[in-house]
């Protein structure tokens, strides 16, 4: 493993930031300060973190309804994100989008998305643009196990394959689409098996191991940048919380939940860092404190921001 200490620490920091951002969102949602639907990524942080560590601002991602992690890992600004969750004018989308629609086009973030499976064609289109413009940028599509049953999955992967587009399709298999267990929504164990149908490489990895994700996506990104076409990477993972806040998750087996919570990606990395003496306990405590501080500042920013003005209702419907 030739990953530098800085890189490992940045993985840890990013995962902590995502975790604390969302733990804060839980608290604020429960207190009625954040309206709408909030879908949490807690437990899945290693996927976005490991994947996006291979990308620059020129590369694109499409995200999902469970998007906070992807956005933070791709460089999204915490204060603008938090303000968006509050629906404030200073938020990423001027308060018009909310948690499910945060985007930062300058950072290549083509949006969280409220429509399951809608990111797949969009990521395919961004990959098309990268190839058309002959940049060496790539497009990474995050989507769930459930979304892999949409027709958009089939159409996107097929088109990307025949056009040899620089795309990486990352399936976050947390084994549920809301209450529906993978066993009931498809007849295969590994979604990566589907890659064969499109003539592209497919692999299944431990989505709770940030280093494994980083390495696998690195290869796929390299292949895409070289012009060799798309890949499908399935990351097996688990969401710790309900589908959205307010869902008690009764459809989950408590034993399975317990097993997976023990495989928490942040704890896994922390143990590895300590074991290999990459960091000391004190440094960990310091990093945690720092991450908390960033989140508190973001909340402060959001709370001190104003509601959008009424004329914003009718702006941005059309350009120009």
């Amino acid at each position, binding site marked *: 493993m030739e990953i530098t200490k800085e890189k490992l620490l940045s993985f840890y920091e990013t995962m902590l930031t995502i975790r604390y951002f969302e733990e804060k969102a839980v608290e604020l949602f429960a207190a009625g300060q954040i*309206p709408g639907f909030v879908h949490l990524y807690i437990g899945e942080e290693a996927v976005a973190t490991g994947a996006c560590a291979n990308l620059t601002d020129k590369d694109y991602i499409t995200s999902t309804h469970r998007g906070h992690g992807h956005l933070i890992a791709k460089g999204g600004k915490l204060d603008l994100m938090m303000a968006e969750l509050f629906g404030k004018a200073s938020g990423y989308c001027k308060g*018009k989008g*909310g948690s*499910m*629609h945060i985007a930062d086009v300058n950072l290549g973030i083509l949006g969280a998305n409220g*429509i399951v499976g809608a990111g797949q064609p969009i990521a395919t289109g961004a990959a098309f643009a990268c190839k058309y413009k002959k940049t060496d940028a790539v497009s990474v599509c995050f989507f769930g196990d459930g979304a892999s049953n*949409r027709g958009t999955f089939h159409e996107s992967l097929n088109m990307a394959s025949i056009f040899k587009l620089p795309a990486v399709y990352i399936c976050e298999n947390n084994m549920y689409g*809301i209450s*529906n267990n993978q066993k009931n929504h498809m007849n295969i164990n590994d979604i990566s098996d589907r890659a064969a149908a499109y003539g592209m490489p497919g692999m299944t990895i431990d989505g709770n191991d940030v280093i494994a994700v980083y390495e696998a996506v690195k290869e796929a990104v390299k292949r895409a940048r070289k012009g060799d076409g798309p890949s499908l990477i399935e990351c097996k993972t688990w969401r710790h919380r309900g589908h959205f806040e307010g869902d008690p998750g009764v459809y989950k087996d408590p034993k399975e939940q317990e097993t997976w919570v023990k495989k928490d990606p942040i704890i896994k990395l922390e143990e590895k860092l300590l074991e290999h003496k990459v960091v000391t306990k004190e440094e960990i405590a310091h990093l945690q404190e720092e991450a908390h501080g960033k989140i508190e500042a973001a909340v402060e920013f959001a709370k001190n921001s104003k509601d*959008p003005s009424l004329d914003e209702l009718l702006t941005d419907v059309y350009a120009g």
Partner: protein
Amino acid sequence: MTQMSYVEGLRDGIRIEMKKDSNIYMAGEDVGIFGGCFGQTAGLFQEFGGERIIDTPISETVIVGHAVGAAAAGLRPIVEIMFIDFIGVCMDEILNQAAKMRYMFGGKAKLPMVIRTTCGAGVGAAAQHSQSLEAFLTHIPGIKVVMPATPADAKGLMAAAIRDDNPVVYIEHKGLLGFKGEVPEGEYVVPLGKADIKREGTDVTIVAWSAMVHQALAAAEALAQEGISAEVIDPRTLAPFDKDSVLQSLEKTGKLVIVHEAVKTGGLGGEIAALVADEGFDLLDAPIKRVTAPDCPVPFSSYLEAHYLPSQDKIVKAVKEMF
């Protein structure tokens, strides 16, 4: 009569029909043990089992498409599209298959199927989970469209939708699911295509459906304080539309306000206004008013969303402008 919520009403309608006819089944995302995204189908899985209450993959195209095939082959499917906003995913199956099969086949096919879905803003669900898209559907000959406003109508229209031999889109309003009211016990059918006068009045006719019925009723109450007597007509079924009820009311009132939560341009309000201009012009003694959402997507911010929605106050204002 018994007290029920809107969601209990629609569920009761489903249960009673399902008990009578084993060809009726329900399929959709999370309609099984989860009981539906808003609890609409709670208990049905336990009562009817997994053979008849079926969780599907996230595949709206084949959810609706399979219903077309199953109905053509003799079943009576009820399928759920969790939010009407996702209807684009299965629009071909609605627009070109379900709606046209009978006609194209020269009357040789029958498609008794119900598509249940939810509409409506007001819960901070933002642009892709809050829309009112009924006009998309009423623009398609061959599809019937139902939008109940009360628990009793939710029950009776569900029964009628299931019994109908045509594709019916049954649209539940998210904001009404917990709304309580009197509901007849046992079998109860509200015929499709029949409006209901929700409040009688003599000075102005307010046509409103779904959640807007309640805004209109509140407005009528406020107007009564000021000496204006408003009649509130709830068409309940938007296709086919009960124009006679509206024209009859206008004979009394001479003034028409149409209220809908959908955006204004291309909304069904325009069609109703045209219909009245065409067939009831002489009944009118003031220009027709529409109170609708503005022509923009549904904003997330609670503050903007509250202003986006048509409301009691906006209706009162529109009515007063006519006097």
